[in-house]
């Protein structure tokens, strides 16, 4: 398969087009703008729609409109812009409309900075909008994985009628790596039972809606969705386990942080410390079984993030706080170094 060099942001866009995405609505923001620019160049040729919206809010609502008619639709942004999209994402979830949202994270809160960050983990996995709901969250750690996960995200979103998010960051979005595009056969999910695309006088009218004024009715609706979430949790978790069979110290990291951790784990092994790495590829659902398998023989866990510690909550919950979990992170756009992580591993190693 031919390898080409692509920026993460561009690879996300190309993969989406190949996955049958028919429209992109976005608003410029660093560090994801290349994605929009790539779509502007390519989408028309691919027979789809590119539109620069007047705001992030309008963009996500354009996605809601397009996806409600049954087409594959997406938007992308970076942290502050994703906050603006949260209203629309909640409506997507509440209306059971699948769509793809990409967050190329940067430092926050507020306007924050423009350097890579992982400080939107809580937002993505717990609070992507108001109300009882989840979105699928995929966390790539390489440009190739960005390609693969876009396809997976669209397919899974369609399968369960749920919005999906790719949680990347400025480092992955900006970096170039060799990438190859496999023959992509996107799942073709029949949406004719719910899509609002004109009934052609052949069926009852379809209504895409998230409003239920009767409390019992809304509760039933949410319960039905949560039953689906249970099936998703059972079937759709994914993680990479690296040198975990015999590890004493299990380092947990996702996305760009995991690349740094892998380097540090390799160095630790060279120094005679039995370190391993657990990298969730899905953040929601969190790979609970996979983590418990990975830390079976470990005596301590270390969580490394480009934040003040957010995924660590899920790590602790997943193992029921049965083992000590420590944390190392840099925030504000500072990327931790393999040397810093190695020091932390050594510190823990000294205690064992």
């Amino acid at each position: 398969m031919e390898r080409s060099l692509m920026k993460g942001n561009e690879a996300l866009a190309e993969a989406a087009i190949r996955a049958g995405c028919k429209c992109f609505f976005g608003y410029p923001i660093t560090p994801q703008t290349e994605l929009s620019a790539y779509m502007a160049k390519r989408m028309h040729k691919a027979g789809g729609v590119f539109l620069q919206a007047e705001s992030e809010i309008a963009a996500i609502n354009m996605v809601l409109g397009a996806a409600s008619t049954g087409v594959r639709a997406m938007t992308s942004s970076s942290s502050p812009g994703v906050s603006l999209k949260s209203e629309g994402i909640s409506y997507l979830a509440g209306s059971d409309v699948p769509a793809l949202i990409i967050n190329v994270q940067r430092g926050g809160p507020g306007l924050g900075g423009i350097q890579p960050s992982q400080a939107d983990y809580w937002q993505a996995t717990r609070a992507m909008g108001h109300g009882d709901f989840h979105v699928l969250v995929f966390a790539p750690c390489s440009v190739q994985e960005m390609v693969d996960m876009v396809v997976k995200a669209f397919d899974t979103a369609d399968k369960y009628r749920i919005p999906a998010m790719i949680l990347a960051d400025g480092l992955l979005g900006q970096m170039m790596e060799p990438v190859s595009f496999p023959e992509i056969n996107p799942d073709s999910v029949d949406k004719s039972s719910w899509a609002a695309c004109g009934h052609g006088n052949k069926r009852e009218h379809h209504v895409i809606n998230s409003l239920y004024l009767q409390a019992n009715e809304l509760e039933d609706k949410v319960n039905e969705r949560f039953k689906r979430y249970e099936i998703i949790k059972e079937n759709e978790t994914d993680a990479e386990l690296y040198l975990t069979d015999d590890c004493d110290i299990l380092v947990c990291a996702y996305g760009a942080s995991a690349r740094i951790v892998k380097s540090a784990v390799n160095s630790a092994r060279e120094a005679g410390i039995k370190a391993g790495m657990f990298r969730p590829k899905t953040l929601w659902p969190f790979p609970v079984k996979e983590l418990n398998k990975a830390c079976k023989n470990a005596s301590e866990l270390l969580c490394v993030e480009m934040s003040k510690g957010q995924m660590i909550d899920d790590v602790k919950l997943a193992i029921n706080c049965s083992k000590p979990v420590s944390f190392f992170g840099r925030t504000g756009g500072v990327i931790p170094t393999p040397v810093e992580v190695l020091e932390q591993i050594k510190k823990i190693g000294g205690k064992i």
Partner: protein
Amino acid sequence: MPVVFKRPDSLLDVPMHYCPGCSHGIVHRLVCEVIDEMGIEGDTIGVCPVGCAVMSYDYFGCDMIEAPHGRAPAVATGVKRTNPDKFVFTYQGDGDLAAIGTAETVHVGARGENIVIIFINNTIYGMTGGQMAPTTIPGQVTQTTPFGRDPELAGYPVRVCELISTLTGTALAQRVAVDTVKHIKEAKEAIRKAFENQKEKRGLSIVEVLSTCPTNWGLSPVDAIKRLQKEMIPYYPLGVYKDVTTKEGEK
């Protein structure tokens, strides 16, 4: 016996939740009559707002999407861009369209988005119980302007048709009312023109309908109509503010 008056086919036969004397029912009917006459129900997708008309998805027989507050024009954009051969309309109130959704409204005009907006202006928030709207007239008493709207404090109303008519992408901006038979007939003609514009891909058509809200105005239905005539029409003059199909183009 020949039938001379009946419920439009595209208006579903279900009880409506609107208050007695509210003009939503009239406007729903006008929209559905036009849809029936043009034979486009099966090819139409409506987008309803947040506000009193939020549940209009239960009344319109075409496929419907319920949008977040103020975002109906953006939702409609997503529908229309991916389904250019379908008819798309939004049905929005004044708070939805001219306050929280102002950006979305202005930009569908700027883009010349080929959709229809039915805009209900009754100078008040109905669903939430009678608060000041962006169209509330100076001096008008509402829950949040208990001493009458004071422009010093609460600013001035937004005249939507005037505003939208300045945009190049607007094909039609017309203000109508539903207080008399004559005005109702004119309103229907305007709505028909709006949908015809969409068929001919002319750009954004907005029909602003001056409407009543007896409940939140604290008036009987008859007195509400009188208020519309005495207070609203002078402040919001009826007429065509822009029509690209007429010779002079703009009025």
